[in-house]
């Protein structure tokens, strides 16, 4: 089994130590490097080729959002998950606009950290609690989504499979696929990830993708 390689960037040793404790029983995850400042991240990515960078927003030297931008430019295949004490919606939004795969607030239960990392690497996009207000009905109408399609779109955010969505909504898996095809067509997207991103960017999402705050 290939292990997921993680680089942690946080200027507080307390957090780095805590993250190590939180992940140590997850044998599929390997911490390949630690950076205590933003400026150390890029060289360490070059040396260790991580799958994901777990990045604090506030760091000396180069702040997390700047690092995020540079990582996405230079290493587009490397995912970045922000792990931060900052829960200011404008900062969270800025992180997603710069290409973050997840924004994890430090309120997270450490037991959930490994799952959040795995799903960020798998391509799901997470948004923290409270970022988006309740679903904009107008936005849904504009996209011409039915109530059922909107529900399925929201379920996509949590990284659920078609089978799981079908089970939760008491639908046949084939019906979920049918709705997904319609959702993709209406939103002009080609994948689940693109659909979730669209929902986020257009205010269609009103539920937690992943409860991280």
């Amino acid at each position, binding site marked *: 089994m290939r292990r997921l390689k993680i680089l942690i960037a946080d200027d507080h040793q*307390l957090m780095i130590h*805590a993250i190590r404790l939180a992940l140590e029983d997850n044998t599929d995850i390997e911490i390949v490097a630690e950076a205590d400042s933003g400026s150390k991240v890029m060289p360490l990515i070059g040396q260790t080729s991580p799958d994901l960078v777990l990045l604090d927003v506030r760091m000396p030297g180069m702040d997390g959002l700047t690092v995020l931008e540079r990582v996405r430019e230079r290493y587009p295949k490397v995912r970045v998950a922000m792990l931060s004490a900052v829960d200011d919606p404008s900062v969270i939004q800025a992180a997603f606009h710069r290409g973050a795969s997840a924004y994890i607030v430090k309120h997270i239960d450490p037991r959930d950290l490994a799952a959040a990392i795995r799903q960020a690497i798998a391509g799901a996009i997470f948004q923290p609690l409270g970022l988006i207000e309740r679903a904009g009905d107008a936005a849904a109408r504009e996209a011409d989504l039915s109530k059922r399609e909107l529900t399925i779109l929201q379920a996509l955010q949590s990284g659920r499979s078609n089978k799981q969505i079908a089970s939760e909504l008491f639908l046949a898996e084939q019906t979920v696929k049918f709705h997904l095809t319609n959702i993709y067509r209406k939103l002009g997207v080609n994948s689940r990830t693109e659909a979730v991103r669209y929902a986020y960017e257009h205010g269609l999402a009103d539920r937690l993708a992943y409860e991280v705050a």
Partner: protein
Amino acid sequence: MALVVEITQPALLPDLITGLKRSGCVADRVAPAACRVRDLGTASREEARLELAFFVRAWQLVHPGVEVTISA
């Protein structure tokens, strides 16, 4: 700024203090089952509490059954 961490198993306090010191904090035993933690290097008390709580919850994962209280 200082925060006090109290745990339900006093025998584990040295382990917690060692972990906190290894993480760059100043941690001193102030009672049989409590330590005071300073120098967290955070910008605010709220951030200090958040990071200390995250650390302590992660520490609890390797010490199941210990209950922890953090206070100012």
